[in-house]
């Protein structure tokens, strides 16, 4: 077999393999711009069209006051606000503050738990989008060992 044919076959097999991915497709658009924003206000604008938010005492953020390991900071988030559309986690001092944005679909409760990375001691803001606006609460979480691995 000459080199040309071998290359052709290898390319064909590689392309076929590529065409088989991905098996799982995105269910909704991934907010790339918001995730790339280098500051919290930019992330809010990319997500919601504005960085104007309303503080609310109806959002609860359970988190350690001091996170020994910034790579794994557990958060438990809940809100009693009504008609919640999404809940987002913004870590002010992370290089890219938006850590996650969770879509609350109809019938799903406006609460969740997860674990995030924090580079350093920072305010962690929870932004809840409802049909009437964007509401926030924030809490400072101290970090002794930063979690971005850099």
């Amino acid at each position, binding site marked *: 077999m000459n080199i040309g044919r071998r290359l052709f076959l290898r390319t064909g097999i590689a392309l076929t393999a590529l065409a088989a*991915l*991905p098996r799982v497709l995105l269910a909704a658009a991934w907010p790339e711009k918001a995730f790339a924003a280098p500051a919290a206000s930019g992330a809010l604008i990319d997500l919601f069209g504005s960085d104007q938010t309303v503080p609310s005492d109806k959002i609860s953020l359970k988190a350690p006051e001091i996170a020994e390991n910034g*790579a794994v900071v557990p958060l438990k988030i809940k809100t009693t606000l009504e008609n919640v559309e999404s809940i987002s986690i913004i870590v002010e001092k992370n290089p890219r503050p938006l850590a996650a944005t969770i879509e609350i*679909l109809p*019938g*799903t409760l406006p609460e969740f738990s*997860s*674990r995030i990375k924090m580079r350093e001691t920072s305010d962690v803001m929870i932004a809840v989008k409802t049909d009437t606006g964007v509401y926030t609460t924030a809490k400072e979480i101290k970090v002794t060992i930063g979690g971005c*691995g*850099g």
Partner: protein
Amino acid sequence: MANSIKVKAEVSGNIAEVKSLMLHPMETGTRKDADTGELVAANHITQLTFTNNEKLVMVANFSTAVSRDPYFSFKFEGGKVGDTLKVAWVDNTGGSDEFETAME
């Protein structure tokens, strides 16, 4: 791909509680490999979805700032014992995985 998803879904009254753990390195792209000194490329789950009997009940969009081996738990209404709960994720490298379990 070997199964990377561990999930438990329990129904209590009208509320189903889902607890899940995805095995994934969630590389930020800013970490240097200890041996080679080279930057390890970003490799992180971008979207995690949960479906109850064909109905989408949760879409979680993640950045690199979600911890390695992401843990995610949440609750939804209307799930019943015996229903199917499907968990699926995609990452920024084109990787993906999915797993189905019966709700208890």
